[in-house]
């Protein structure tokens, strides 16, 4: 039973299919906002299957083992992190006190994998892209952590399941986390490398950044990682900031979960449409000058509230 849950639902296969479906939603909304038609529902699946069938060309000077290992490494780390996030109801597959930190770090591992993969590709574009990935990590990581941990602070626990349990018991407390939600959403744009923060993969500047030399099934898994990262990130947001409708049982609960994810993905697509890409130095300045102080404010608000409410 547990094997079924880990492998199929809500495990790897469900994540892959759901991730690709969410990529379709993202691309379709992006296209409709630009007055275009957009791809059909099976486009991400077709892309994945096509990439699996393509030839892989690995540069001669690249480190073969690292090159081939990184896609699988990043894929497994994001898939693992989903085990700790509650989908419907307030229980995730596995949980323990401190798993919000584990999930956040498991989400950092793909970024590291992109860096290593790009660096060991030895192509100039890939190196610039991979260095940009790490630089971007230094900018958005702190606001993202602070936003999520502020919500955890109010719930007085480090376990995501317990956080959702706390908020479902005290329904209106989630309103105190609105600032944190906004901050985390902007930082999530940075983690998922979407415009305005798609600097590591800037197509018009460095071809494809860290993915320049990747092709064939390695690229397929990298793209799948990005999709699953989007789903996992959005699920984390939904679990920590939008914890309502959790008492409905499996089918209705799943529907509520689907609606929450759709809402967050649509917000991400809207952000993709509205802005131009920032430069890396502008992004760091923005994150440290504006985003981190606002996250600090959220932390303060939650601390004060905690002091008041503990009574």
């Amino acid at each position, binding site marked *: 039973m547990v094997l079924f849950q880990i492998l199929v639902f809500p495990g790897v296969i469900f994540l892959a299919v759901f991730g690709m479906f969410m990529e379709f939603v993202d691309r379709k909304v992006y296209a409709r906002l*630009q007055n275009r038609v957009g791809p059909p529902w099976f486009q991400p699946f077709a892309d994945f299957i096509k990439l699996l069938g393509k030839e892989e060309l690995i540069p001669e000077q690249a480190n073969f083992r690292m090159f081939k290992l990184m896609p699988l490494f990043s894929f497994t780390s994001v898939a693992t992190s989903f085990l700790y996030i509650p989908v419907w109801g307030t229980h995730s597959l596995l949980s323990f006190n401190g798993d919000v930190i584990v999930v956040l770090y498991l989400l950092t591992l793909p970024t590291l994998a992109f860096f290593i993969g790009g660096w060991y590709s030895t192509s100039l574009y890939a190196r610039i892209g991979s260095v940009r990935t790490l630089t971007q990590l230094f900018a958005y990581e702190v606001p993202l952590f602070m936003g999520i941990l502020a919500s955890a602070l109010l719930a007085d626990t480090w376990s995501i399941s317990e956080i959702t349990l706390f908020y479902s018991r005290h329904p209106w407390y989630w309103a105190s986390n609105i600032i944190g939600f906004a901050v985390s959403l902007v930082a999530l744009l940075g983690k998922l490398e979407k415009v305005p923060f798609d600097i590591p993969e800037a197509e018009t500047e460095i071809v494809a950044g860290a993915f320049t030399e990747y092709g064939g099934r390695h690229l397929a898994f990298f793209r799948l990682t990005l999709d699953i990262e989007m789903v996992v990130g959005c699920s984390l947001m939904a679990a920590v900031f939008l914890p309502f409708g959790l008492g409905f049982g499996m089918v209705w609960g799943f529907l509520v979960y689907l609606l929450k994810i759709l809402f967050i993905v649509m917000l991400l697509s809207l952000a993709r449409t509205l802005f131009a890409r920032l430069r890396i130095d502008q992004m760091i300045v923005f994150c440290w000058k504006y985003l981190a102080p606002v996250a600090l404010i959220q932390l303060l608000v939650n601390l004060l509230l905690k002091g008041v409410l503990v009574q």
Partner: protein
Amino acid sequence: MRPGRILRLVLQSFFKKPVTRNYPVVKIEMPQGFRGKLKFDPKKCVGCKMCMRDCPAGAITISKTADNKFMAEIDLARCIFCAQCVDSCMRKALEMTKEFELGALKKLDLTVVTKDDS
């Protein structure tokens, strides 16, 4: 300075029909005077070869088939669809149609031969 200045336009477009034309399911007709495929009328040709002289790409070749009857070989791969031959012809034997889907699988199909069979 406002972030997201394009928001209003973007949200309006979300609820409108997309502007994409569903070609090839929906085919739009080209405007009058569109310079598409060349059409040759062998009955009007007198064989002066002014079109051959003025063609920038050497796409049209007029040759004699019988007494006072001429045929034209138009190489669609060379034609640049400028319609200079239409202007140069004094008998109005050439005209441009609206056809623009001129792809072919064999190079030989791109040479259009028009002759008077009567």
